[in-house]
């Protein structure tokens, strides 16, 4: 049997220790910093879009400095707006929402929480990060090639994405780079998923049975399974799309397609095939983004409610049910594609049934909070915010999951509001909760509490101020993906809502500067953290902050307790570490 053998001495050279490191903690931080860089770019792009929507005729010479070619004259052309939409979506979904909670926190804390010295395959782990980084750089390169970034959206819908430059700027080299970047990301995800699954199954320490795993580990484990099964299908689709573009095939291009008054030579393909392949990946991807947030939320809620999580086994089963159902509902993204109403009904029913495990999780969270002595720390506030936003975003999902309601609303801002809340903002709240919660462990210092609370309230109110009005835009019939809001009579009365949303977005974005300041200031100047500042139970709180190279040193931790033994009657304190001797109290 091969086991990961921990080298108990960290590598001496700077490059092996901090750059090409195989230490899961360093790799986790690398992922987190990559996600922070990506989220900054993503936010800047969204601000460009919001400004364009709120004040369509305004010129922005200062903003044009960043994109001198695409924004010649200081205005955002409709084509460039679509580039912004594409790049914002791709960067946020792949390089923030997938990278931070899974690659970042998962890498850092999964091995520690199961009691391992490192991941099962440290070298693959390192490769996974570097391939992800390469993918990110390739994606950004799309801004700088001739034609600029692609305009086909993060979904790269064919035939727009397949026919090449003739259909618009950015569909030449920019689209090719997009596909290569996503293919690299698929490979990196595979390497990551292998590691997560194998580590969870094989490297658990003595006493850490599967039912003693923290819910964070269950969430990362399920997410890794989803990544393992979803990304290869996107890779297959990506290969075919690239062949359509560079090898003259027509997998996704139908016969007789006329673009710019020219009949294309392609024939025989089906744009719907791309949608099927894409969404077979795309829907599980939504859960890849949100499941780690659910895990972190469960973990943080239990810690600061000082109560065991309500219904541990039901929580695990619900995570699995959500993961499984996630593979069976891709058709609900395609209700307006002309699919048979019979298959639409099946997809609709399966989609609505996801409400059941989601409700199980929500009610279990509420039951955990019921009659609890809640400590309103910053991570707790973000976890509570997660629950709030998960419910709000989930309710509009029940609306959109029904074909009769989805068809009129599908191409409106209602969908934009829905998916931003449920997969964007909720997942980001999970990331924030994780950051504030684990910061003391990662850097050995506390983040500033007052700044954190201010950051929470501004963000919490801010995101609702952005996205609730978007529902109204959608119900009023405002189409999404339109750069031009002027010049349509029926949209004119909605313009003040756009202005309101943009102002709210600017304030919310500015509030994130508080977070970045707090983060970097606290790394150097924060109050020193103890080993276990939150008085929590899981294994990461038994080792120094920051943890040494081999996590647990020469002794292997032995686990005697479940992950959420808070306020156990008869115990000396209101928490029992997982490693506490079994005699402390009956487990």
């Amino acid at each position, binding site marked *: *049997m*091969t*086991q*990961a053998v921990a080298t108990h001495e960290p590598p001496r050279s700077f490059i092996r220790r901090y750059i090409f490191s195989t230490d899961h903690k360093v790799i986790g931080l690398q992922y987190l910093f990559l996600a922070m860089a990506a989220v900054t770019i993503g936010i800047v792009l969204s601000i460009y879009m919001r400004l364009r929507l709120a004040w369509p005729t305004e010129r922005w010479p200062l903003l044009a400095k960043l994109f001198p070619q695409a924004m010649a004259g200081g205005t955002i052309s409709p084509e460039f707006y679509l580039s912004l939409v594409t790049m914002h979506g791709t960067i946020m979904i792949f390089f923030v929402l997938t990278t931070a909670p899974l690659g970042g926190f998962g890498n850092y804390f999964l091995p520690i929480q199961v*009691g391992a010295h490192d991941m*099962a*395959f440290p070298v*693959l782990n390192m490769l996974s990060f570097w391939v992800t980084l390469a993918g990110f750089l390739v994606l950004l390169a799309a801004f700088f090639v001739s034609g600029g970034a692609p305009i086909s959206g993060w979904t790269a819908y064919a035939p727009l994405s397949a026919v090449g430059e003739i259909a618009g700027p950015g569909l030449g080299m920019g689209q090719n780079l997009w596909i290569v970047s996503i293919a690299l990301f698929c490979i990196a995800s*595979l390497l990551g*998923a*292998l*590691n997560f*699954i*194998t580590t969870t*199954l*094989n*490297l*658990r*320490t*003595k*006493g*850490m*049975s*599967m039912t003693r795993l923290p819910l964070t580990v269950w969430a990362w484990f399920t997410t890794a399974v989803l990544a*393992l*099964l979803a*990304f*290869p*299908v996107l*890779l*297959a*689709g990506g*290969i*075919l799309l690239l*062949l359509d573009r560079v*090898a*003259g*095939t*027509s*997998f996704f291009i139908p016969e007789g397609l006329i673009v710019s008054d020219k009949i294309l*030579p*392609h*024939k*025989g*393909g*089906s744009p719907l*095939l791309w949608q*099927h*392949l894409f969404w*077979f990946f795309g829907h599980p991807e939504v859960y890849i983004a949100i499941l780690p947030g659910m895990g972190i939320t469960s973990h943080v809620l239990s810690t600061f409610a000082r109560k065991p999580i309500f219904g541990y086994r039901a929580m695990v089963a619900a995570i699995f049910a959500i993961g499984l159902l996630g593979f069976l509902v891709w058709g609900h993204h395609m209700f307006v594609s002309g699919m048979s109403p019979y298959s639409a009904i099946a997809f609709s029913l399966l989609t609505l049934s996801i409400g059941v495990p989601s409700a199980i999780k929500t009610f279990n969270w509420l039951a955990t909070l019921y009659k609890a002595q809640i400590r309103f720390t910053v991570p707790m506030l973000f976890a509570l915010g997660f629950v709030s936003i998960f419910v709000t975003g989930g309710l509009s999902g029940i609306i959109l999951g029904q074909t009769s309601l989805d068809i009129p609303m599908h191409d409106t801002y209602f969908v934009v509001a829905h998916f931003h809340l449920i997969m964007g903002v909720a997942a980001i709240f999970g990331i924030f909760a994780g950051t504030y919660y684990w910061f003391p462990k990662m850097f050995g210092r506390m983040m500033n509490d007052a700044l954190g609370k201010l950051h929470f309230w501004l963000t919490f109110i801010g995101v609702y101020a952005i996205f609730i009005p978007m529902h109204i835009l959608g119900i009023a019939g405002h189409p999404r993906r339109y750069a031009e809001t002027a010049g349509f009579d029926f949209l004119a009365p909605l313009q003040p809502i756009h202005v309101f949303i943009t102002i709210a977005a600017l304030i919310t974005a500015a509030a994130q500067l508080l977070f970045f300041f707090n983060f970097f200031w606290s790394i150097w100047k924060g109050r020193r953290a103890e080993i276990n500042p939150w008085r929590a139970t899981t294994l990461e709180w038994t080792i120094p902050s920051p943890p040494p190279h081999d996590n647990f040193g020469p002794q*292997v931790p*032995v686990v005697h307790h479940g992950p959420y033994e808070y306020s156990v009657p008869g115990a000396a304190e209101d928490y029992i570490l997982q490693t506490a001797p079994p005699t402390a109290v009956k487990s």
Partner: protein
Amino acid sequence: MAEHIERLRFAEWEGGVSPFAVGSKKLGMWLFIVSDSLTFSGLLVGYSYVRIASERWPMPFEFWPTIVMATLMTFCLLSSSLTMALAVRASSLGDRSRTVRFILLTMLGGILFILLHAREWAGLIAEGVRMWENPWGVPLFGASFFTLTGLHMLHVASGVIYLSVIALGVSRGRFTHEDVEISGLYWHFVDLVWMFIFPLVYLLSVKMP
């Protein structure tokens, strides 16, 4: 059996050894196989989709030479799986030189497969089959043929390189039995993929009288 399950349920997980009697490396290879088979499934589903969606999918393959040669290729690949299994058995008995010999035979099967396949590709290209056109109509025929068999051939070629590394390592005593077994898993998987491609791409496209 029931007793065994009871014991599993109540035994405290002792850590250290693999709980499912599968080592980490082997589990990693299994997971890779699961993932890679989904890539192939995606491509095969795509192929089936465009095939069903087109009115007259070409069925140009003659029994001789195409199907006979493809059967020969299948024979090469299947035999190489047998020799791979023998290599794994030899390594489990600790017989290093036999292990290396059987791995070399396996590689030979793979190389023969690639050579026959390349010859077939050359023949089709000479007939005018391209990624974007072919003499029989529906352009996607050539596109899907080359994509599916090409990706598979890439896997066989990577497998031959992988096995050469294993053979070299075993002959120098560097690799364990588990490493040989894991390379065998990959090789059998590549073989299994062909067992889907052969009927779906070749047998379904035989010329009907």
